[in-house]
């Protein structure tokens, strides 16, 4: 225990000194302190506890990072929950977590609550995802739809919708909807950016478990669903992807933003106060350094390079 206390003490004192220098507006001082911090972080063994929570879409990236990070700093205990973007922000607002993963930007009401609680935070964009619209393998009438058709299909109009309601050439059969649950950022993003905050079809099957959506669409010829690109990639053989405005979601179309409006950035929100702790600072630096490559390896897409460059400048790493 004594050794542990000693390390804690030195790291706390060290961080106080370091951040004292960082907090200064002087650019020259900043760069000098940052070089010393990056050199210490790689050699010094840090200790600390870091808690995060949030989006299930971001969690595969986070898991990879935490796994790799544990090998470099085994005494920094990072724990990450998977409560969905909304659930994650709820805990972030409550001050229970140091960072929150999100598959959409923070909502206004959430930002207000954070302000009320006096929690300052920084938003980091870590990767790109393309929400993929999928239908059953045997669906032979849909290849390519416009954003407007997509909106028409998913918008609640109070009655049961048939494919033929959207396009007369499509079969006269009821559409079955499969959507991520309301706690997920994917749902929020879709309702916000495609449906413009109007009601998603109420007959939709909602599930926080994306595998349920995959199985649902796989089993029903008249089904349509959407979820993160990684889930589509992993189940490519079982589902049929729908092009939006002629663009199929692929690595390149998502990264370039050509796959619109369904390309979306994924975020990590970090509490500024926690960033002052050396362990958290080190972990976040590590995360942002490796987020791009980790995103690629689990099926997402890197953000453009200058995004990471900006973040690195901000964190001075």
């Amino acid at each position: 225990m004594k050794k542990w206390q000693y390390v804690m003490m030195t790291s706390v004192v060290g961080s106080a000194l370091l951040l004292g220098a960082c907090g200064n507006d002087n650019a020259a001082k900043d760069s000098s302190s940052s070089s010393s911090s990056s050199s210490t972080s790689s050699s010094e063994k840090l200790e600390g506890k870091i808690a995060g929570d949030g989006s299930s879409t971001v969690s595969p990236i986070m898991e990879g990072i935490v796994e790799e990070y544990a090998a470099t700093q085994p005494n920094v205990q990072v724990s990450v929950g998977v409560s969905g973007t909304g659930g994650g922000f709820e805990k972030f607002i409550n001050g229970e977590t140091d960072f929150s993963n999100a598959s959409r930007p923070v909502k206004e009401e959430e930002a207000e609550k954070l302000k009320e609680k006096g929690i300052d935070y920084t938003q980091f964009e870590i990767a790109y995802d393309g929400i993929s619209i999928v239908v059953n393998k045997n669906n032979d009438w849909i290849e390519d739809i416009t954003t407007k058709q997509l909106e028409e299909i998913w918008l609640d109009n109070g009655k049961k919708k048939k494919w033929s309601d959207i396009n007369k050439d499509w079969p006269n059969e009821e559409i079955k909807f499969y959507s991520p649950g309301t706690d997920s950022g994917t749902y929020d993003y879709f309702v916000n950016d495609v449906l413009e905050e109007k009601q998603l079809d109420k007959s939709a099957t909602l599930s926080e478990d994306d595998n349920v959506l995959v199985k649902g669409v796989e089993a029903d010829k008249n089904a349509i669903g959407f979820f993160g690109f990684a889930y589509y990639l992993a189940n490519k053989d079982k589902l049929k992807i729908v092009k939006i405005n002629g663009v199929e979601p692929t690595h390149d179309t998502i990264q370039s933003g050509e796959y619109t409006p369904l390309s979306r950035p994924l975020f990590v929100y970090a509490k500024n106060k926690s960033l002052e702790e050396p362990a958290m600072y080190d972990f976040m630096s590590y995360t942002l350094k490796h987020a791009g490559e980790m995103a690629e390896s689990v099926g997402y897409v890197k953000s453009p390079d200058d995004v990471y460059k900006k973040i690195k400048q901000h964190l001075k790493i």
Partner: protein
Amino acid sequence: MAYINHETVAKKLSVRRLKNNLWKNVFLLALLLALAALVILGYRMISQGTAYLNWEFLQNFSSRFPEKAGVHAALIGSIAMLAIVAPVSLFLGVGAAIYLEEYAKKNKFTQFIQMNISNLAGVPSIVFGLLGLTIFVRMLGMGKSILAAGLTMSLLILPVVIVAAQEAIRAVPDHLREASFGMGATKWQTIYKVVLPSAIPGILTGGILALSRAIGETAPLVVIGIPVIVQFLPTGILSEFTALPMLIFDWAKRPQEEFQYVAAAGILVLMILLIFMNSIAVWIRNKFQKRY
């Protein structure tokens, strides 16, 4: 006058025999259906899970690679949680049962309490999760720790433990108590030396079955917000941790199909742990029963 009309009896005999056989077969079918479900479940788990179940599976942390994934943190976390749940729920549960059975007057009020304990046993576990989240995690500031989760689980299984302990205590024959009083023993001496020892097999059976429920329960942990991405072992009761059901739940949600098999292997570990606990229950019960 004949008391037995042999003719009608003979006439009805075949119908009665038929009915007799019919009911026997209906009950046999019920048993077989339940068994079949169990066998299919066991077969599915074993056929899917064994490929990933090996020594390393127990020693590795969870991973994004299915072949490297393991239950180390979750297994230790679950056992650590149990180390909180077992003493807390058994002490509170048996204590409450002793009071209700041995001390409390039998009036409307105790009847009311009794009824509510039974009702409490039927409350969905997610409700206890919400209770734990507001009281232990937030109000008492324990965070998403082993202590908070353990206390929540203790509350969840407390009604079951109380009811089981009450039944065990009630089953101790009164003449044992009377003999003890007759020898000049006080009430506490009687409870401690006579009632509890003879009730202990029943208490432990109920208690350990309740503990098995606590270790397999997922909903309260989800509500409390127990993290799943954890690459360290708990260091104390206030440490964050992850538990087996959470990890299995997380694996089952993964996009890659291999993780379904990893989840099956996780279920096998959980099952082995449960069987192990239940056999401890059986062993303790037999050991104590020999004394009487």
